[in-house]
């Protein structure tokens, strides 16, 4: 099986079969990761460029290590130290990278749709590593991988996503992906942070966190950004924690074997209490490891599917 598109722009655009295929490939990659010699030749002769217009620690490092573990040439460009500062457009930057022989461009951008624009203008595969409020497909893939690893399947599972859904690309990708794989997704957060009409995607919107968590198999907290408070979307982090924060007591509403996820970075004591973060039900650290495996799988599948980017037309 090959992925249909040269790019991974979002989980909205790919089929459940493709998602399952990426996740099963990631299983193999995780095996490689856990071995003594974390080096394979899957990406030998390929170049992977990470083009980040936003700060990132884990996603960027995760892609970089995934590339290097598989023998690719990897390079980073960050907006603060590139021609972007000189006013170069995204398309021009992309074409420049493309012409140097990149096979995959991994892009993170503060504006929704930027990876789509890039993908239309380059021969390289484009992986969306987070665009504005739109999607963050590799994060959702690693979340789903983590759930399936623990639960065996997503089908019929009750997943609660709690927090700033409106601004969350992680939430959107997870909603697309998890509903495709048959999970029952419920969301909850302050009314000012729930995207209008989102229930049309087949998710349930709960006005209290208690209802959302009740009998859940998976509870996912999302990062609350302080600048949202300044824009008046919620009053204080204290009030947020009181009504939507996840602590031991609330977690008891979920199923006994429920797991807790968070895409990080976490505001301890706001989205999740420290006890929950460091507790037995938390798979937050496992998510990070799985992130590398999922990205290895994806890089492999995308570079395998077609001819590489030959620079000479």
């Amino acid at each position, binding site marked *: 099986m090959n992925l249909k598109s040269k790019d991974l722009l979002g989980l*909205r655009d790919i089929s459940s079969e493709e998602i399952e295929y990426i996740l099963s490939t990631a299983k193999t990659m995780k095996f490689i990761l856990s071995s003594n010699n974390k080096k394979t030749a899957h990406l030998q002769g390929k170049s992977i460029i990470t083009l980040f217009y936003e700060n990132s620690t884990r996603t960027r490092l995760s892609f970089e290590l995934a590339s290097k573990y598989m023998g690719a040439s990897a390079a980073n460009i960050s907006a603060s130290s590139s021609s972007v500062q000189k006013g170069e*457009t*995204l*398309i021009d930057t992309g074409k420049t990278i493309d012409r140097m022989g990149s096979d995959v461009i991994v892009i993170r*951008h503060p*504006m*929704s*749709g*930027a990876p*789509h*624009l890039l993908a239309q203008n380059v021969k390289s595969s484009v992986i969306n590593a987070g*665009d*504005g*409020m*739109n*999607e963050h497909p590799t994060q959702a893939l690693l979340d789903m991988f983590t759930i399936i690893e623990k639960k065996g399947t997503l089908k019929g599972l009750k997943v609660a996503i709690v927090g700033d859904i409106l601004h969350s*690309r992680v939430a*959107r990708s997870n909603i697309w992906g998890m509903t495709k794989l048959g999970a029952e997704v419920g969301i909850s957060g302050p009314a000012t942070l729930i*995207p*209008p*009409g*989102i229930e*049309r*995607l087949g998710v349930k919107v709960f006005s209290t966190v208690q209802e959302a968590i009740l009998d859940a198999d998976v509870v996912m907290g999302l990062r609350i950004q302080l600048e949202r408070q300044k824009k008046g979307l919620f009053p204080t982090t204290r009030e947020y924690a009181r009504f939507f924060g996840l602590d031991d007591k609330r977690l008891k509403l979920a199923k006994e074997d429920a797991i807790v996820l968070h895409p990080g970075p976490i505001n301890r004591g706001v989205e999740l209490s420290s006890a929950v973060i460091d507790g037995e039900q938390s798979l937050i650290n496992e998510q990070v490891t799985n992130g590398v495996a999922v990205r290895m799988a994806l890089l492999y599948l995308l570079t395998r599917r077609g001819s590489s980017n030959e620079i000479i037309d």
Partner: protein
Amino acid sequence: MKLLIKNGHIIDAKTGLNKVSDILIDDGTVVQIENGIDSTGCETIEAKGMYVVPGLVDAHCHLREPGFEYKEDIESGTRSAAKGGFTSIACMPNTSPVLDNEAMISYVLNKAKADGIVNVYPIGAVSKGLKGEELSEIGELKFSGAVALSDDGRPVNSAALMKKAMQYASMFDITIISHCEDMDLVDEGLMNEGFYSSILGLKGNPAPAEEVMISRDLILAEYTKATIHIAHVTTELGVDLIRNAKRRGVNVTAETCPHYFSLTDQACEGFNTNAKVNPPLRTQKDVEAIIEGLRDGTIDIISTDHAPHHKDEKNVEFKLAANGMVGFETAFPLAITYLVKPGHLSIEDLVKKMCLNPSNMLGINKGSIELGTCADILIFDINEQYTVDISTLESKSKNSPFHGFKLYGQPQYTIVRGNPIVREKVLL
């Protein structure tokens, strides 16, 4: 030179003319409307099976000159208008420099005389530099030829300034065209707030941003007894507010644009920047309300809001893309296809909304076919279908979301002052 239009179905809203007849034009003036006029010595247009209506009047367009000639200029803009059947167009003052004084109005009028192929009527700014701080020289704008006032492109944020503008403009009997948008509520929104903004992860611009400002200006117009015109109405509640104000006797007219009755916010799917426009495309429910507003007369005018932008301003991230779309060359076919063909409006209704009413709102004495008046005429075939190809647009800019649309009613002839500048769909 004499021009004879033979056997066309003439429809005129002002005179109520609605019959198959010939029209004789002599020296740019309509001199005879009868059957079987002798064609000796005349250039003849055979219009059998076609409709002959007044040349279209656009109350709202952007010609971009001076200042933004890389997007459009008066020559290319009027050519695009002519191709779309428009013979008189009113251009907004958000140029650079802004049309906020007598000299700038004269500049546009002179430039239009030299380069324009249709009649151009400049609209002056409400406030100096469109800054929303001080009134522009409204009296001088009026007497130098401005047909209306508007800060279009942005709202007059200060309610107090808008109130003063209405009071002051009333003294000179000039209409204020209000671009209704509460910028606090817009809050950097990029498209209609709703399901599609949610799934695209694009910041939403909610309908109340428009509706709150419409209500403000309706209240101020009622209070000051000024005459106002609400530009580009897009929402269900917006239509209802205007309907109610008209019942209360407020001197208000309103317009919508073809994209607001033919497209919804779904058109932004795929981060399609050609569907990025301000106010934004709304929902199906709003589209239906707009059509109902047109049908029951709440919305008086269909204008184009022709807003040309260079390719480089659209081929960028959605957030960075300019707002607006070109409109001259698709406006009339869209109205025919989406309003007349499904039976929402008759051709006579459409002639009111695209000829007579805009002409009356602007006070320019155009938009009708009657004896003794200047022969500005559009001839179209309602049955011939064509496919929109944006590469063939006369406008310098090609930012249209209608590429590939199959439409009816493409203008066959556009006649300005008796001179056929579009013949058999070809612009001379």
